[in-house]
């Protein structure tokens, strides 16, 4: 039974919530080759942004590049356009953006921790982590009016203030997480079964991480001290003393395996708490938006021209947008999104080779793939067939139903 065979993980596979396909060649249970096939989730977002939407609409579109870190993409878009149109957001807005970004990081890392536990077959931990996560979800809902999509950032500032009413709730959340942190770290880092499943599994060497341009916790877990908030800060981040977190801070050495990726993310949750607390303490007062009249704002952007690159440290790593505006052209003239997962999936191959089927889910999940931003363009037949395709399936299914009847 030891001959090679291939299995496709995905596009609908319990281990990968998003549609993507990993074609894995196996010898017995061992992985000998990996190929990523990414063409399932394309919704043509860049195309919509470049052809159909005005800039305000694109903001919400960018928010839905990925629902998990739905702050990073609009932030990048906003940063790029602010640079082109020379819009200077007020100070208070910059602080609110930082808080929002860090809240998002907490929720995203906790979410990941739960998913990772689930991939390890440790559902109790999934439930525990997601239970803890509800706290930040409550805060997000309190501040933004929706648990997930924030709809908060706007060209030149933010749409809603963080008021006196919110502050105590956020502070309470911070102390809640400070307490929970010890327990979480114990549950994740001291459990023998988790250690067995993650230690020395999916190792990405520092050299490879640099070469393959890995980003975010994936790179940091391999010992690359790299964090956009530290290296190339934006918003109000220069005010904070942020350093890139590597696993040796907690355990003294770095291997670059799945376990290290857990360590990094846990520590980053702690770091985010500190940032939020400091931001709350230091928050300047004042306006929260550069231009209250949206119509005016849109006109200003419409009359700007130029190009800019914006970078943002999303929970999964560095997110980059390149934007070009043309005077008088309402949509974005050029828009390129580089989501962190886009570059991190390159690291799957060195991580997976030599391990077993059982390791695929946790290794794949260890880079925290949010594939909805990566898998983008896919099948377009020529014009006519495009319209056909939907109708075609429709017809197919009608026929099938008729047959059943």
């Amino acid at each position, binding site marked *: 039974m030891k001959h090679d065979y291939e299995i496709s993980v995905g596009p609908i596979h319990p281990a990968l919530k998003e549609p993507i396909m990993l074609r894995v060649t196996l010898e017995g249970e061992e992985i000998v080759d990996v190929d990523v096939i990414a063409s399932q989730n394309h919704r043509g977002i860049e195309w919509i942004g470049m052809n159909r*939407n*005005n800039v*305000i*609409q694109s*903001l*919400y*579109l960018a928010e*839905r590049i990925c629902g998990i870190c739905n702050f990073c993409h609009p932030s990048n878009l906003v940063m790029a356009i602010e640079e082109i149109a020379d819009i200077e957001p007020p100070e208070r807005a910059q602080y609110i953006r930082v808080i929002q970004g860090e809240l998002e990081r907490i929720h995203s890392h906790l979410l990941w921790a739960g998913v990772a536990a689930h991939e390890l077959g*440790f559902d*109790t*931990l999934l439930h*525990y982590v997601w*239970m803890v996560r509800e706290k930040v979800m*409550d805060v997000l*809902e*309190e*501040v933004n*009016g*929706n648990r997930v*999509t924030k*709809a908060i950032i706007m060209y030149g500032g933010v*749409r*809603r203030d963080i008021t006196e*009413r919110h502050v105590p709730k956020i502070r309470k959340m911070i102390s809640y997480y400070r307490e929970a942190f010890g327990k979480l770290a*114990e*549950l994740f880092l*001291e*459990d*023998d*079964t988790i250690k067995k499943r993650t230690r020395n599994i999916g190792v990405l060497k520092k050299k490879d991480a640099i070469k393959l341009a890995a980003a975010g916790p994936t790179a940091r877990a391999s010992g690359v001290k790299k964090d956009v908030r530290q290296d190339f800060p934006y918003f109000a981040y220069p005010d904070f003393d942020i350093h890139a977190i590597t696993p040796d801070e907690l355990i003294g050495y770095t291997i670059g395996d799945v376990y290290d990726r857990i360590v990094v993310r846990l520590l980053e949750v702690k770091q985010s708490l500190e940032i939020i607390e400091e931001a709350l303490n230091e928050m300047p007062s004042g306006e929260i938006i550069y231009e209250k009249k*949206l*119509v005016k704002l849109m006109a200003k952007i419409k009359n700007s021209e130029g190009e800019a690159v914006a970078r943002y440290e999303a929970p999964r790593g560095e997110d980059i947008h390149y934007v070009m505006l043309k005077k008088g052209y309402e949509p974005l003239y050029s828009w390129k999104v580089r989501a962190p997962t886009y570059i991190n999936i390159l690291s799957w191959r060195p991580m997976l080779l030599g391990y077993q089927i059982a390791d695929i889910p946790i290794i794949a999940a260890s880079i925290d793939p949010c594939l909805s931003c990566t898998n983008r363009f896919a099948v377009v037949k020529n014009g006519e067939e495009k319209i056909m395709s939907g109708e075609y399936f429709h017809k197919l299914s009608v026929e099938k139903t008729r047959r059943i009847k």
Partner: protein
Amino acid sequence: MFPMLSQVFKKIFKKPFTNLFPVKYAPKSMKKFKEDVEKKKIKTNPPIPLPENFRGKILYDKEKCIGCQLCIKVCPPKAIEFKKEEKKIRIYVARCIFCSQCNDICPVGALNMSSDFLLASDNKLEENLIVE
């Protein structure tokens, strides 16, 4: 070694974290249950409290609206339709993404977000899901 084991054991005796909306277990008959609720025979548990500025189903004050169509211009999913004859608008909730951008731009404040969020339905165009 296995820190979760002791955790888990302790948890058996603790009260669950669950919010029992709308009831603890599934009722035998959902229809009867609804009737009973209407007759106030059974008390349901409320959902987790909503924040003040929750973005739920949109509210439209038709009287206030001046038909300027600004909301239509910014609506990301194009959920708003202009009714030419009346110079008023119609909003499809099944298309709306609850961004409240239209509220922000409306010059007369004719649009607002309610806290109504239990919108599930088997008809995406049912009355409840069209605001006009």
